[in-house]
């Protein structure tokens, strides 16, 4: 089994490299500095969101609220600072509190009311967006406050020539990697994805863990939103209506994190991010119309899910048959 998954990861990486080469040769604009920056920017946001999504998917959950959380929390923060004249710091605290509340509601509904994660988070996404659009801010696009040090730093600063945005993505990837690999929390995530019933009987705090995971995805979405606002000097609520959540899922599934849980890690997210980023960027340069782009992405996502369900079947019974009980 591990051999197959390794090659899956390898195939994705190879595919990304091949596409890079093809695009560089075929598209004169692909290898320009401006384009690489654009590519990396779009990819980093997706990658950061993918880190959060990957975490819940490994634990056999899913969080479709992430984009709504990102859009609404950051738009609210921006609206509070620019329109209501609040200081940036208290506004950030309020945004943080909102994100935590969203995560708690998601987690409690899934863990304690035992509503399937996919429906809970789908509906919560709509609720969060509705509340945000209805009460928290009035206009579609919120601009970052003029001359704010934080957004200036996130958007323009570089460390050894590397934009802050990529540094943030890599740093966050490092944190998630370490948490998954070295901490008790990480072990619990894998255990829950592998076998929820066994986790429960072994005495793992299964329900608090689910709540914690959704709070963490909320926090990650908040960070991703702040960076997004910094790099494009604002946050548009249209992001919520875009296909971004599917791009995030594409990153996770294409990278090789099985939807059946318990498998994969940060490496898979990095590989998935790279491939999706190159793909989206190449299509944009080739001037593939938006609708066709979405169709292509959708087909790739579908194929990735099909391949995933063949390699990592969710049904324990079929998994055993593969193994052949003697």
């Amino acid at each position, binding site marked *: 089994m591990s051999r197959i998954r390794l090659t899956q990861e390898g195939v994705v990486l190879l595919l990304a490299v091949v596409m890079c080469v093809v695009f560089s040769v075929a598209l004169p604009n692909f290898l320009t500095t401006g384009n690489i920056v654009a590519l990396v920017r779009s990819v980093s946001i997706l990658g950061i969101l993918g880190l959060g999504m990957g975490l819940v998917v490994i634990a056999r959950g899913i969080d479709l609220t992430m984009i709504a959380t990102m859009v609404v929390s950051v738009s609210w923060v921006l609206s509070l600072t620019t329109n209501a004249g609040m200081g940036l710091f208290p506004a950030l605290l309020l945004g943080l509190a909102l994100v935590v509340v969203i995560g708690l509601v998601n987690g409690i509904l899934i863990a304690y009311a035992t509503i399937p994660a996919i429906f809970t988070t789908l509906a919560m996404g709509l609720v969060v967006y509705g509340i945000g659009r209805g009460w928290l801010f009035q206009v579609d696009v919120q601009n970052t406050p003029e001359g704010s040090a934080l957004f200036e730093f996130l958007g323009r600063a570089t460390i050894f020539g590397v934009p802050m945005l990529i540094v943030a993505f890599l740093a966050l990837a490092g944190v998630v990697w370490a948490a998954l690999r070295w901490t008790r929390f990480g072990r619990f995530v894998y*255990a829950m994805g592998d076998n929820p019933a066994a986790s429960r009987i072994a*005495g793992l705090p299964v329900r608090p863990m689910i709540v914690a995971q959704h709070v963490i995805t909320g926090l990650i979405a908040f960070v991703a939103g702040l960076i997004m606002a910094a790099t494009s000097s604002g946050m548009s609520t249209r992001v919520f209506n875009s296909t971004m959540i599917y791009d995030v899922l594409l990153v996770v599934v294409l990278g090789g994190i099985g939807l059946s849980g318990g498998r994969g890690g940060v490496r898979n997210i990095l590989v998935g991010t790279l491939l999706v980023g190159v793909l989206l960027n190449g299509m944009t340069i080739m001037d593939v119309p938006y609708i066709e782009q979405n169709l292509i992405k959708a087909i790739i996502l579908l194929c990735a899910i099909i391949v995933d369900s063949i390699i990592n079947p969710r049904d324990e019974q079929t998994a055993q048959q593969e193994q*052949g009980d003697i």
Partner: protein
Amino acid sequence: MTILLELKKATKDFRGVPAIKDVDFTLEYGEIHAILGENGAGKSTLTKILAGVYQLSAGELLFDGKPALLASPADALRQGIAMVFQETNLVPAMTVAQNIYLGDEKLFNRLRGLYIQAQRFLLSLNFYVDPMALVSSLGAGKKQMVEIARAVHHKARLMIFDEPTATLTPEEKFHFFNLIRRLKRDGISIIFISHALEEALELSDRITVLRDGKVAASDLTSNFDRDRIIQAMVGRSLSGELYGAEAKNRVPRGYGEKVLSIQNLSMGTVVRNTSFSVFAGQITGLFGLVGSGRTETMKIVSGVLKRDFFHGGTIRFYEKQVRYRTPRPAVIDGIVYVTEDRKVEGFFETMSISENIQLGTLAIGVNPFSVVSLAEARQLAKQWTDRLAIKAIDPDAKVIELSGGNQQKVVIAKSAVQKPKMIIFDEPTRGVDVGSIVEIHRFINELANTGIAVIVISSYLPEILALSDRILVARQGRIVEEMDSRTATEQRIMYAAVH
């Protein structure tokens, strides 16, 4: 031509490991053929090949004298081979009649017509089952009847049973035997797998014994006796050696502190007003047939069962009244439950032996951010593979790749590292090879010697008698009798357990 089915040099391997190898097997018309063997001998694989679940890697399968390809269980059924699995394949929410004709419905499916048809059909088989009853309301014996009726309806000429009597009460067993004989009179051939040698000797015409994926013996039943079968199964005669000897020469341990005391515990119709106590430093054997509520009672105690139907009663653990709603607080307080179904709720299949065992210690910790020590994992793995004699070629091997016995040992180790004060073993040796049974029993005795309260749930009487210092018998959701292990016999226990 009297041969219905023939296997020639049949081989099936999984990833290069043969489960059965060069098996020759013949089955005559109207024959009852028992397949016996230890766990892992290849019985299930052989029957699953005949039922179309697996396809042969090499060799030939002749059905009715013609080479046959059984692509799937549905395909096998079309050709006249039906398999009744250990776990029934019925849809619980449908009625008996709907289940019999499942997959055969007409476009306009009139229920009334279906019931009349089913009634006639069931009566023609002498089955007294209400066609309008929901399958979920039937007992194990009746469910089996419905499965058989379904097979007959599909005009099966060969029926395969995997452990058909495991879940039946003695009375149901008697009816089942008559039924099998009646099917034989109608010209249907029967293959059944069993662990109960007496049943095979009583019921079958011919016996095939498998050992390590090969045919160890195949002969008319009249030429077999118990000793010869056991000899063929294990390659040596150990009749009575496994359980008998240790049970006879043993002095039961005394009573330690009272650890658990249960009063008037009730839950739905499964656990009914039961009361009993458990003491430290001894092994309490809990015996009961299927439906006796023995597992459910223990799952309530350890918080494993989601108690939707809790109907009251008190549980005291070390004099403190407790009511666990999830296993976590129970585990932290020192009550550990070792499941009977290790695949579904026992081990973590993507993880290695050391990761599995370490999760036991991680689970009882509090700080989620504490760093996991790989050195500790290695040391735990080494300590427990030695102590329980877990055999793995590679210490980093995934648990799913181990044999049933070794998997069970990993699950036991994972629970033992949680420093339990009371440990509950539910069918600790189900699906475990003979060698591992001895080692698991030795370990259970060791635990009791260190002063832990040990509960062993088992439906296998020799195991209960060999291990227990004190025996509790459950019947219809209640502990009905307590016995001293010195005076208990299989007959006395069984007498208390049946109703």
